[in-house]
C-alpha cells in the first residue's frame, strides 16, 4: 500500500499501482467525509505548510481542509504578507520554513519545475498543487476518482479534454494519469491552444466539438482564461463559445449519456452553457468533495511513508 515516491510532483511516470493506491485510499476518506465527525488522528503531530506563490483559494482551502481532517497542523504561507516581497530568495524562504521543522510542503507556483527544485533543497515531502503550465496532479487524481466513481472504471474509456490545452497544467496531468490507467485520451480545442507536439504524448487531436462529444465517454472541460494574454490565442469569446462551447443542443444530438467534468469555476455561456452547467452541477460539486478526499489520501500516503 506504500507509494513508490516520497513526493507527488506530477503524474508523469507515476506507476499504475500508485495511482490505484491513491484512488482506493481516497475511497476510505470519502466515507469518512460522510460521517458526522469528519476528523481522523492520522497525521497528528505532523506539520504541513501550504506554500502558495499564486493565489488559488479553492485549491488551498481543499488542501487545508484535508490537512485539518487528518489532524495535521496546517500553516498557510501565501505570497502576500510573506517575505517574498522583501526580496528574500526563494531558496532562503524555503530554508527558513524548513527550519521550523516542517514535515510536508504543498506548493503552488507560477513557474514550472518549482516542486522538483524544492525536493533538491529541502527534506520535506513535496506535494505539487500546480506549477506553471506543467502539472497539477491532485486535480487530475480527483478527476480520475470522480470518473471511476460515476462509471465504475477507467480502463478502456474514451476521454476528451476540451479547451486551452497548451496553457493547462490540469490537461497535462490528466493526460499522463489517464494514459497510465489505460484510457484513450484525446484533446479538443482551437489549434492555437493545442501544443504542436501533443501527438507525441499519444494523444489524439479533435478540432470539432461535435465529434468530440460523439466519440467520447467523458469530456473534461477546462476553464477558458479570459485575461487579455490568454485571449490572444482565439479571436473572440463569442467565437469560442459558438464553436467549442458545450450546449444542451449539442448533447441532445448524440442520444447517449456523456459525463462532463469541469475543474471550476465555470465561465457560464463560454465553455459550458448554463443549462449544461446546471445539468452536470452535481458532478462538478461532487468533484469538489472528492478533491478533499484525494488530498487526504495523498497527504496520508506520503505523510505516513517515512
Amino acid at each position, binding site marked *: 500500500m506504500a507509494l513508490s515516491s516520497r513526493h507527488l510532483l506530477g503524474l508523469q511516470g507515476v506507476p499504475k499501482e500508485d495511482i490505484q493506491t491513491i484512488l482506493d485510499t481516497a475511497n476510505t476518506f470519502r466515507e469518512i467525509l460522510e460521517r458526522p465527525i469528519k476528523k481522523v488522528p492520522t497525521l497528528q503531530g505532523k506539520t504541513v505548510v501550504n506554500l502558495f506563490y499564486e493565489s488559488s483559494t479553492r485549491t488551498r482551502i481543499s488542501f487545508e481542509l484535508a490537512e485539518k481532517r487528518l489532524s495535521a497542523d496546517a500553516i498557510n504561507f501565501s505570497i502576500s504578507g510573506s517575505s517574498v516581497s522583501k526580496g528574500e530568495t526563494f531558496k532562503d524562504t524555503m530554508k527558513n520554513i524548513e527550519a521550523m521543522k516542517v514535515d510536508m510542503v504543498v506548493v503552488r*507556483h507560477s*513557474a*514550472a*519545475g518549482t516542486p522538483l*527544485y524544492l525536493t533538491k533543497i529541502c527534506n520535506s515531502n513535496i506535494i505539487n498543487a500546480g506549477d506553471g503550465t506543467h*502539472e497539477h496532479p491532485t486535480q487530475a487524481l480527483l478527476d480520475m476518482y470522480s470518473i471511476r466513481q460515476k462509471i465504475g472504471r477507467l480502463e478502456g474509456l474514451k476521454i476528451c479534454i476540451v479547451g486551452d490545452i497548451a496553457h493547462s*497544467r490540469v490537461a*497535462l496531468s490528466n493526460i499522463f494519469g489517464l494514459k497510465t490507467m489505460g484510457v484513450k485520451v484525446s484533446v479538443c480545442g482551437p489549434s492555437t491552444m493545442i501544443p504542436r507536439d501533443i501527438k507525441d504524448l499519444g494523444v489524439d487531436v479533435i478540432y470539432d466539438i461535435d465529434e468530440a462529444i460523439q466519440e467520447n465517454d467523458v469530456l473534461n472541460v477546462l476553464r477558458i482564461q479570459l485575461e487579455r494574454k490568454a485571449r490572444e490565442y482565439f479571436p473572440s469569446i463569442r467565437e469560442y463559445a459558438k464553436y467549442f462551447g458545450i450546449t444542451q443542443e449539442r448533447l441532445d444530438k448524440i442520444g447517449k449519456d456523456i459525463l462532463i467534468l469541469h475543474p471550476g469555476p465555470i465561465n457560464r455561456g463560454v465553455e459550458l452553457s448554463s443549462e449544461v452547467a446546471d445539468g452536470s452541477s452535481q458532478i462538478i460539486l461532487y468533484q469538489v468533495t472528492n478533491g478533499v478526499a484525494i488530498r487526504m489520501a495523498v497527504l496520508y500516503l506520503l505523510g505516513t511513508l517515512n
Partner: protein
Amino acid sequence: MKIILKNVDIIHPEDIVNLKGTSVLVDNGIISKIGELNQAEIRGAKEFDFSGKILVPGLFDMHVHLREPGREDEETVLTGCNSAAAGGFTGVACMPNTEPDIDTAEVVKFIKEQAANHLVDVYPVAAASLGRKGEIISPMAELVEAGAVAFSDDGVAIRTSAVLRRAFEYANMYNTPIIEHCEDESLADGAMNEGVNSTLLGLPALASVAEDIIVSRDILMAEYTGGRIHIAHISTKNSVNLVRDAKKKGIKVTAEVTPHHFTLTDDAVKSYDTNFKMNPPLRTQDDIIAIIKGIKDGTIDCIASDHAPHSIEEKETEFQFAPNGIVGLETIVGLSSTELLHKNKISIEELVNKLSINPRRILNIPIPKFEVGAVANFTIIDPDLVWTVDVSKFKSKSKNSPFDKRLLTGKAIAVINRKKMYADNQWIDLVSA
C-alpha cells in the same frame, strides 16, 4: 627574457606551417627563431618542454559578454580576460549589451583601456542601434575609429528591416560586419526550445522558426545591400541550410556556433537546472546533426562561446525566470576537441581555423604570423589531455556552467601574447630581465 618552446608541433593553417617536434625561440615576446636551436641561442633561456603538444596561432573567441561596464559583480574586463587566457584565448570580441550599452566611443575606449595591459586582446563589438533599441543607428564611424570591430544589437535582433538596412549600408562604408542574434521578437516569449520536451515540462517555448525567420530576413537584406552579415550562435537545422544556400549564391554571410549547441539537446532541461537555460535554447538531436554537417562543410565558420556569466543569485531561481547564458570561455576548447576532433568530425587544422583564423578574418583583425620578428601570439594545446571540468577553479567571476564535472579530452595549456605568457596558473612577463 628568452623562452624556448621545445619539441612542439606547429600548426598554422594560414601560413601553411606544419612542423613536428620543433623548437620556437621567443625573445622579449618576439619570435626569434623557429627550428633547431644552437648552444648560443639556448643559453640563458627558460625552457618549456611541449612534446606531444600543438602550438597554434592564438585562439580568438568572437562572442563573449564581459559585463563591464554595469555588472561588475558578474564579470569584469579583467576577470573575463583571465578566463579567456585560462581557456586558451589570446583575443576576444565582447558584445555590447552592457550597462550602458557599447554605443558611444567613450565606452569602446573605456573597455579597451581596462584590457590595455592584459595578455588578451579585447575588441569591442558596438551596438548597431542606439541603446540596442532598433530605432536609430549608432554613431558607427566614431565607434569604428575608437576601435569597434563589428556592430550588433545582441540579446535581440535589429528590430526592424528599415534599421537593419541602414545599419548594413552605413557599416559597409567601413567594411564592418553586422553580427545578428537571430530571433523574431514577436515569437520570442519562451524559456526553452519548442518541442515535445517543452510540452512535457510545461515551460513556455521558443519556436526554432523564430531564428530561421530572422536568418532569412538578414540574408535577403545582406544580398540587397551588399552588406556583411554574421549569424551569431546558430542553432537550428533550417538556419544552417539557409546560410549554406546563401553562401552558394555569393552572399556575404558567415556564421558561428557555440559548443553547447553541438553538445547538448533540450533533453537536458528535464532537470529544470537553470545552467541549461540559454538563448538560443538547446535544440534537438536533428539540429546537432545539421550543425555538425555545417561545421564540416564550412557553412559554419567559427566556434564561439557566447560566454555569459551570471551571478549565483540570478541563476538560482525558477527556470522560466532565470537569465539566459553560461560561462563558456574555459570549456570551449575542451568541448570542441572532445566533440569534434576526437569524434573525427574535423581535423586539427579545421579546428584552428574555426577557433583562431576565421573569427579574426571576419572582424578584419590581423592573423598572428609565425615568422621571425613577429609578436608571439600562440596557444599551446594538449589535444589528448583528459581532464574534468571544475567550475570552482574557473577564473571567470561566475560559475554558471552546465558542464561542471564533465570529462573532456583536450585542453589549452598555455597562451602567449603581448609579451606575456600564461601557463600552469602563472603569469610570466616575457620582457623582464
